[in-house]
């Protein structure tokens, strides 16, 4: 298409302005990554309910589709025993699904009861909308005003990440496996301390411990927990296990990969720690590193 010079100039100017706007947005977000403008909050306020609704519909469809797929292999002859069998299997599947869901909630409730910190339950409404940023979005009932940037997020399995952006009732969690995330951790067996950082470019969810000082060598299977330093994460929260130790005899630091305990691909409910646990009383004799689990409640995340 051949345009007159004036129009071409105008078109070029608009393209230039859009490029400039995107660069300004980039510069502002680089300066303060968690900051959201009023416009951003407004947009997310419109997007989050749609995501929540779509997520609910998608999960319902997946359940129905799963049951349908289970039933379609039954032959068209409608043999009474076969149909009875499939009906029972569908019921069993449904029961298993309900039991698993109830188990998940019970574990979450158990964690909530055994965590000596004030927490809020949240539902994951989207995860990894872009494969280059490990971020999950959660919807928190009655969490408006309480949730702040930097708050830790947990599941019964371990540390999920921290709140990165807050917009009304929904928040973004920067997952512990994102390269932008850094968590101070230590290995209880060796006492080695380092910084856990997400591994960029991995076709899965992995992280590495940086600056782990050589000393006693870490081994595969070693437990990794939060050190409590830095003030964001309470001490002794489970993070994962050492999955690979790369020998590096000449280096100052050990090269250690960590497989997270949390299954990020199946993340559905999480807890946001809105107030840290009380600091232990130094006059109370032996310091309680973790609270004893309440009888009848789920496992504690504290190791």
């Amino acid at each position, binding site marked *: 298409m051949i345009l007159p010079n004036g129009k071409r100039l105008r078109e070029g100017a608009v393209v230039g302005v859009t490029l400039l706007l995107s660069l300004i947005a980039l510069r502002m977000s680089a300066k303060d990554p968690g900051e959201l403008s009023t416009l951003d909050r407004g*947009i997310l306020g419109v997007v989050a309910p749609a995501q929540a609704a779509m997520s609910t519909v998608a999960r319902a469809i997946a359940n129905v589709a799963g049951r349908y797929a289970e039933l379609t292999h039954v032959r068209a002859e409608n043999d009474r025993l076969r149909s009875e069998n499939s009906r029972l299997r569908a019921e069993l599947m449904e029961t298993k699904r309900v039991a698993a869901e109830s188990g998940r909630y019970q574990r979450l409730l158990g964690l909530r009861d055994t965590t000596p910190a004030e927490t809020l339950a949240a539902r994951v409404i989207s995860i990894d909308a872009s494969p280059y940023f490990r971020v999950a979005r959660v919807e928190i009932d009655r969490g408006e005003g309480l949730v702040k940037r930097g708050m830790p997020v947990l599941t019964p399995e371990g540390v999920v990440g921290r709140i990165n952006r807050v917009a009304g009732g929904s928040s973004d969690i920067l997952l512990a496996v994102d390269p932008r995330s850094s968590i101070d951790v230590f290995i209880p067996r060796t006492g080695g301390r380092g910084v856990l950082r997400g591994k960029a470019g991995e076709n899965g969810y992995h992280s590495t411990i940086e600056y782990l000082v050589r000393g006693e060598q870490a081994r595969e299977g070693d437990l990794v927990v939060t050190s409590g330093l830095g003030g964001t994460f309470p001490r002794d929260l489970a993070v994962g296990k050492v999955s690979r130790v790369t020998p590096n005899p000449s280096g100052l630091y050990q090269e250690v990969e960590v497989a997270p305990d949390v299954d990020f691909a199946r993340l559905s409910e999480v807890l946001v720690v809105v107030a840290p646990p009380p600091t232990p009383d130094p006059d109370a004799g032996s310091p309680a590193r973790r609270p004893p689990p309440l009888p009848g409640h789920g496992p504690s995340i504290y190791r």
Partner: protein
Amino acid sequence: MRSLLTLLVAYILLVLQSTVLELAPVRMAAPSLGLLVVLYVGVSAKWAISSASIVALCTGYLLDLVSGAPQGVHALVFILICIFARALSTRVAVQGIVLSAAVSFVASLLASVLVIIVRARVTPEGGYGGLKDAPLEALLTGVAGPFVLGLLRRIDGKLEATRARVGLGRGARSRNAGRAQSPWR
């Protein structure tokens, strides 16, 4: 009106991308549906490059907010892809399933590389990793490409027909304008 409708489609596709596709069997990658909207407005001769770049900016910014990426990463990349698509459309007519799929595949690969470069500039700790995910994402985008481009073409066509019917179409407007200025009634 057309831009708003296209942005609404982009919004729906992005919500779809961020929620429904998480249940898909290939967990680690999903087609970049927002990119396909940008690709369409870029290659379509019906769209002026200025309107196309505004749609690209809005779609990219929306993806930045939805995906938790630093604001501006996808916005910048989508505008660049839009310019690339416009340059491409002057040489190749992007029509037919095979060509649509191929262009979607290439655009997705290019967008992935650009996102990784911009991300590395904004958050250096992330490095240049992530390229391993790009081919699978591009493949899925290539598969989805003909459908999404076809859908947008159909929506555009319907809108054009409606505008022409009520006398707001480009052709109709210029015809009316010509008639109004002409001394021969």
